[in-house]
Each structure stands twice: as C-alpha cells, then as structure tokens.
C-alpha cells in the first residue's frame, strides 16, 4: 500500500498548474480571446509571409483547385532585391519620403501644437478646423491633390498661380525628373536619393492630411507638462530655447516616441498617394511589394519586400525608443 497516494496525502498542484489558477488564471482567461485573435490575424499571416519570403511561390490551379505553390530558395529573394538597382532606388526614395516627412512633422507639427496650446479667442474653432484634413479618407486626399497638381492649364495650381503673377501655368508638378539634374554634385545627389518635384509634391499632399494628427498628439503631451516648470525656469533666467530644450522636449519624449513609431510605420509603407498620383513612376517599397506579388505573380519576392518594410520600421522604432528613453532619463 505504500507509495499509493490516498485522498489526504495527494500531492499539491504542480507549479505549472498553479500558474493558471487564482488571479493570474483569471487574467489569462480574460486575455485569451484577444490572444487568439492576435495569433490568427497577426501572427499566422506574419509567419506565413516570412516563410513565403524564402520561397519562389506562384499561383497554380491543379485539378480545378487553386493554390499557392512554393519551393524553398533560401535568401535568394532578398539577394535578388538587394542587388537590383531599381529596387535600391525605390528603397532610397522611400527613405527620402520618410525622412523629409518626419522632419516636417517634428518641426511644423510641434510648432502647430504650441500655437494650438496658446490661449486665444476662437481656439476651439481653430482646433476643429485644423483637424479636418485628418478626417478626409486617404484616397480622397490623394485625388484632391491630383486635381491641384494637374500639369495642364486647367489644373488648380496652374490655374491659380498665373493669376497671382506667378509661373506660366504649365508646370508639371508631379514630374519625377530629379531636381536640378545638371547642377554638379547636388543634381546627382538629389537623383540618388530620389528627390524630385513630384516626390516633394506628394510629401506636401501627404503632410497636409497627417500633420494635424501629429500636432494634436503633441498638443496632448504639452498639456500634461505643469506650467510651474516653465515659471520656475523663467525665474531662473532660462531662454525660450532652453525652456523648450530642457523642459518641453524631454517631457514630450513618451508621446513623441508614439508619434514617431506610428508615423514611421505609415510612411515606410505609404501606398495610396503614390499609386493614385504617380502610378508606378516612383517605385517606393510598397509599390514594389504590390507589383512583385500581385502584378508579376512573384509572391515570394513580394513577401520579401513586405518583410524589408517591416524590418525598416522595426529598426527605426528601436532607435526612437532607445533615444527618447535616454532623453527622458537625462
């Protein structure tokens, strides 16, 4: 009989079992539906895309049943892309679009937030008006700017400027020819980074829509900073720049990191405004991913581009978190 546990001498629940009981168990049970959804809608496609990016995958119909058939090619898709000059020019164009946009958002966005944070008559109305562009759907915004930048004389900007005594009314605003191509050093550099009048026009169109959300998020951050800090700094003789540098900027760190991560992800995968206004004239990464997968039928290569987009976003997110965290501690 020895060794056979009786009712009273049965062993206590294992640590594994205990992990799922009590408050923790309840928390896990409540989290489970969300975790399952995230797994089904995010993790599974993510892993599938990763696997596809190492395959040569095409659509096949066998016996009346369609399927995506792939065979393992290792890093070949990535090597093909990263040694292709056209893809690399698209990568540089993406980075230029991202860097120029972020720069605008960090400067004008913060400035707008400061202005909206001031007390003046009609502030609520101004805040509401400033927010309107964000409410416009991306495709509508793109079409709107397409009408403004139309290169014909009937284009909105080409129609307006000559009336103000500016321009000849025949400027091709969306021209993707590099800026100042014949200027030594500068011309080739602009060409290399993918800077063109068309690209700059797209940045303006995109920023018009997205600046308000950046400004409002920063405004929310500004409102959490106690006014006492500024008063104390002013008494101590701090200049406006010093107040901004040593109070505002560090305390905006957490909100700025959110804004930067959010906008980086959006900018690196920006598609609608490019496709609507430039078709495939500017081969940014999202256009490249779309073309490779859905136009050319190279689903493996398209997945590889999608992963490169993800890795770039991740890399910048890591930099932001690291940099802004340090800033906050300092």
């Amino acid at each position: 009989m020895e060794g056979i546990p009786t009712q009273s001498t049965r062993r206590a629940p294992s640590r594994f079992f205990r992990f799922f009981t009590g408050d923790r168990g309840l928390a896990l049970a409540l989290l489970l539906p969300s975790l399952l959804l995230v797994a089904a809608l995010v993790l599974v496609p993510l892993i599938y895309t990763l696997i596809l990016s190492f395959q040569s995958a095409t659509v096949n119909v066998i016996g009346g049943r369609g399927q995506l058939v792939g065979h393992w090619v290792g890093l070949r898709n990535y090597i093909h892309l990263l040694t292709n000059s056209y893809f690399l020019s698209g990568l540089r164009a993406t980075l230029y679009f991202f860097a120029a946009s972020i720069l605008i958002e960090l400067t004008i966005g913060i400035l707008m937030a400061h202005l909206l944070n001031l007390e003046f008559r009609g502030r609520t109305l101004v805040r509401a008006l400033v927010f309107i562009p964000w409410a416009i759907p991306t495709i509508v915004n793109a079409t709107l700017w397409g009408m403004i930048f139309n290169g014909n004389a009937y284009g909105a900007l080409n129609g307006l400027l000559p009336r103000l005594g500016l321009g000849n009314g025949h400027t091709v605003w969306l021209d993707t020819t590099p800026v100042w191509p014949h200027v030594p050093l500068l011309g080739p550099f602009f060409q290399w980074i993918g800077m063109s009048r068309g690209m700059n026009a797209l940045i303006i169109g995109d920023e018009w829509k997205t600046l308000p959300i950046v400004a409002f998020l920063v405004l929310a951050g500004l409102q959490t900073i106690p006014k006492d800090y500024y008063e104390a700094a002013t008494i101590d003789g701090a200049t406006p720049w010093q107040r901004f540098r040593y109070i505002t900027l560090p305390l905006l760190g957490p909100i700025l990191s959110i804004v930067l991560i959010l906008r980086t992800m959006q900018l690196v995968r920006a598609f609608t405004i490019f496709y609507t206004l430039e078709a495939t004239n500017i081969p940014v990464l999202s256009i490249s991913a779309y073309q490779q997968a859905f136009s050319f039928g190279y689903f493996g290569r398209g997945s590889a581009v999608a992963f490169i987009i993800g890795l770039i976003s991740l890399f910048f997110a890591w930099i932001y978190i690291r940099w802004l965290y340090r800033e906050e501690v300092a």
Partner: protein
Amino acid sequence: MDEKKEGLNRREFLKLAGVAAGAVALGGTLGETLAQSSKATKQLSVLYMNQAGYTTQVVTEMAKQFMSLYPDIRINLTFLPYPQMHDAITTSVAASTATYHVVLADLIWTAEFIDHGYVIPLNPYITPEEKQGIYQAIWNGLEYKGKIASFPFLANFQNFYYNREHLRRAGFEAGPRTIDEWVHQMEVIKSKGIVKYPYEDSWTQAEGLVCDYVRMAGMFGNGNLFEGGEPVMNRGPQLKALEFMVMLMQKGLANPASIEADEPTAARAFASGEASFNTNWTFVTGIMNDPKQSKIIGQGVVSTFPIVPGTNPKTHSASISGFQGIAIPANTPKELIPAAIQWIRFAASPKIQAEHLHSQWPVWKSVANSPAERRINPWWQVYQENLEAVYNRPKVPDYLHVSAIIQRYVHQALQGNLSPKSAADQMVQELKALGG
C-alpha cells in the same frame, strides 16, 4: 392560498402576443428566403469593372434581365476599378474554390491566364457562328496558342482625334494622313499660338504608355515589340517611334504634362480645347460632344491614324487593341460552368450589344454594320478601319512584368533622363534577362 385566475393577465397576454408576432415575422422571412433559394439554385459570382460604356448600372440591369429569363441562376455582381481587377482575379484563382466564377478579363492577361491555367479555355463552347460573327482582330487578342481565354465582350481600341476648328484657324482643311503632315500641322498650330501644346497623350508610367508606344510603332510600320520571341525595341519602327515621341516632347509639340497624364486626363485636355490632337480610346467620342464635359462641341473629329507612307498597306492606319472578354476561372466549380456559359452568351449577345450602341462599339460585325449603329455613330466607318488596324501588345505570359520594364524605359526617355537609343537598348537588355 393563491387563487388561480381564469384567462390571461396583462403580462401573459403581452408575452404571448410578442411570441406570436416574432413567429410570424420569422416565418415570413424564412418563407421568403426559402422561396428565393428554391427558385435560384445556382449562385454565380461575377466580377466586373467600373468603366465607361458598360457601366455598373448597365451591367446590373443586364443581370436583372438575365435572372428574369433564367430564374434558377442568381447573379451576384462585384465591381472593381481596373487596377484592382488583375489582383482580384489572381487571388481568387489562388483559393481552392473561386471567389469569382465569371470574370471580365483584359486582353493583356490572355497569355498569362492560359499559360498558368488560370482560366478554362472556351474553345469547346464557341460555335462557328460566334467565331465568324465577331471581328477576327478581337479573337486574335483574346487567344493564346490556339486557346481562347475569354469571350469577346468589349471592343475597345484607339482613335485619332483632332480639333477641326484649330486646324481651320491654322489653315488646314483636313486632318493629317501621314506622320510628316501631322508634325507640320502641329508646328503651324503652335507657331500661330492657337494652343501652346498641340498634342497631349497619356504617358504617365502606366499601361497606357505601352499602348501609345505600341501604336506609335505601328504608325511607323510595325507595332510588334517582339519578333520570334525576342524584343526588338532598339531598331526599326519601334526605335523610330520612341525617337518620335521624345522629339514631340523636346519640340514642345506634346504637352510636358503628358508624362504625368492618364487617358482621362489627356481626354479632358482635348475636350477643354487645350490640345488640338489626342490619340485615345473610344470613350473620347462621347466626351467631346458632351456639353457637360466639353468646350469643343462640334469641333472634334474622329479619324484614322497618320502613318508613314508605304506602311500598313492593308489598313492605312495603325491602332492599338484594348479588348476585354469574359472568362471562367479554372477553379470555378464544375457544376456552375453551364450557368457561367449561359451568362456569358447572354451578356455578350448581339441583342444586348445592340441595346447599348450609344455607349459602346459592338464586338459583333452584324451589329457594327447595322443601320442603328450608322445612325447613332457618324464615325462608324473610321471605327471599322481603326478596329481592323489594331496591333496587340506583346502576348507573353509574364506580360505585366514585361510591360513594367517597357513603361520604365520609355518614361525615362520621355523625361530626358536617357536618350531613346540608350533607353531602348537597356529595355531590350533587361527584357532578354527576364527571358521575355
């Protein structure tokens, strides 16, 4: 002791009434659903495109007519813009069972769809009468290696449009018959200041650019970009066409905005009177005479294309095809194929096409030559000539990749980043590397 009351109290009555009302409503809904499903035993999911001519409204009406004729088939329509059509079809084909059982297919997908087995070849279903009754030029576009990918539905092709009033003011009685005449007319129009840029075309980096390049090559004598499976853009008429397009840009005869314009944009430039010439799809005929969209009512003329003398001896013109057909994806369940064929026959029938002559040129010869068409379309003869003169874009399975390469280098040449020869050489080199 509780005394049981006879009959129903107010609460019980309300409960019962609610249950009864719910049962009636549920019964009615179920009954209706069952009645519908008992009528329509086959559900056909059909993918169409948002476009002019056969608009969503027209096709929806067509489906209603069909369902009243064939109550056992239900047509579920989905409409998408052109750029999304290929992706939607490909992803539907990638599924084990088709999302779309019938799809509208552009002719440029013909080789891909047949080569990869995406669609069912329609040869066994097509009668000799149908084969003879439809223009051979259209069949040529929708056939690959003897297999018919789709049934002809839409006869789209390009026409040469010019503004009669602009030409009259420049001192010309008629439109150009040769390329030299055309250039001369443009130069005179420009020098007299009638318009700043006499010509506008859709040369943004998209499919429309390849259409215009192929047609231009055709106007120089040969619109085939591949010969014997090899790309030939860096010699002969194909190279001359590119040089000509670049020359038009350099001399300011073509609007610089062309490099960012799509077909509707170029059409609007013509209809606004900003351009004297436009080479575009048949929809421009409607726009130029629509008071809501046009400032040149009565001034627009539809013509054959100017060509290099001695070329295109049979047709004396050179156009580009943009036909569309109706196809059945290969993963459509077998039991739905007869219904799909029935729908195709109905939608593309001469009867239906004859009802829409105002908006679309028919695929059927009998309808195109009918008194009704002649009455409605004063340019019907020109249409016939241009239709007979179409060139097709390369029929290769990886056409969309081939097209992207062509678009890129032609666009680079038009922007002045590369010389025409250099662009054509690089284009050929890249296409050869692709295996095109």
